């Protein structure tokens, strides 16, 4: 594991983070600290900005107001969003190969083991296009077992998984946090784990039409 298993340092934190889309403020003055072992469940109604928050933390969405602070530059994150980032024409194994190859390397036996872990034994050489939606989701999730990362950013990771798949995944989340990793995830489903912390974006959303302080003058 690349991270130090000391539990009192923080991995990342936000400082007065805000997000504005189409002159609508989604959330404002968001402060929270992610430490090793944390499992944050980001909640909110549809359109509350859950996906945007995860993308801001991953560095995919620009941060205009507030800050996202990382403990150091070498902190490794895995982001799995609504779009899984899999190439349909390539096999499950080939997809994992290039995804892992972006920042490190993997052997075939490691990739096969990761696929077996997510219940896709025997599907290693099938093109992803032939797999079902749930199986595609499992291929993407296999990365969690293949690439060691400090923080997992998972956007609706239970989508299209079967009941057993959800139970298994909750178990992976438990193991990851117990080993000193951190998870931030969105889901409309409750997670039955003792260490879950809830981040309800609804509490950070200002009244409709209110604007961010520094941009307030532009809109009446």
């Amino acid at each position, binding site marked *: 594991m690349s991270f130090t298993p000391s539990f009192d340092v923080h991995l990342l934190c936000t400082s007065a983070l805000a997000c504005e889309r189409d002159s609508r403020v989604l959330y404002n003055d968001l402060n929270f600290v992610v430490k090793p072992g944390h499992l944050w469940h980001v909640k909110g109604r549809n359109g509350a900005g859950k996906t945007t928050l995860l993308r801001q933390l991953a560095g995919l969405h620009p941060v205009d107001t507030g800050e996202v602070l990382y403990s150091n530059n070498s902190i490794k994150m895995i982001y799995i969003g609504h779009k899984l980032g*899999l190439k349909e024409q*390539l096999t499950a194994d080939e997809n994992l190969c290039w995804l892992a190859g972006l920042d490190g390397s993997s052997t075939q036996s490691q990739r096969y083991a990761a696929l077996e872990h997510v219940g896709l034994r025997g599907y290693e050489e099938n093109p992803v296009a032939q797999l079902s939606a749930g199986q595609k989701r499992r291929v993407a999730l296999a990365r969690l077992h293949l690439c060691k990362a400090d923080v997992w950013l998972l956007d609706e990771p239970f989508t299209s998984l079967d009941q057993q798949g959800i139970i298994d995944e909750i178990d992976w989340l438990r193991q990851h946090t117990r080993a000193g990793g951190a998870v931030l995830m969105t889901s409309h489903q409750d997670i039955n784990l003792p260490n879950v912390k809830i981040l309800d974006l609804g509490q950070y959303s200002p009244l409709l039409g209110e604007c961010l302080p520094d941009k307030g003058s532009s809109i009446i």
Partner: protein
Amino acid sequence: MIRYMWAIVRRDLLLVARQPAEMINPLVFFLLVIALFPLGVSPEAALLSQTAAGVIWVAAMLATLLSLELLFKLDHDDGSLEQLLLAPYPSWSLVLAKVFVHWLVSGLPLILISPLIATMLFLPSHAVPTLMLSLLIGTPTLSLLGAIGAALVTGVRGGGMLLTLLILPLYVPVIIFGASSVAAAAQGMAIGGYMALLAAMFVFALMITPWSAGSALKL
């Protein structure tokens, strides 16, 4: 970083191998444009040998444009562009790797069949090495410049036309000097100056475009 770029190059070549149509389409388009030209204008050898240089260069440019729109679009649509951008390496290395594959797939085959095309259009045989050399320097420049446009229209619905409008003005100098070098060689004149300018444009594009296209991708 080399390993990162290699991972992208390997993946994209594998994708091309799975879908050879992507590679063959621009080539067929290139051949068709050139085969139709004598039918539309005149099959006379004297006229064709004069216009051959320009026709080949314009056809090469159109073939490049044809495949440019998908340079980043497919990756954007399936979410793999996000994963590529998340890797802890500068985005220009990603652009450089993608452009390299684009040139390998759309530019290199054109260069390889250009002697055949030159014969079809009665280009004097002593001008063929110049044609190949000018295409060798020019087509990577076209791919590099096109990457800026492709990065800007990624995520825009129906960005193909917009891409053409954005990129064509940038292609003008490459076309002018590329075609003139071949025409000069056909007339037995020196080509050093043209080649130097083409090479200068290539180096300029190599320095500027990966960086700017990489920034555009992050928007």
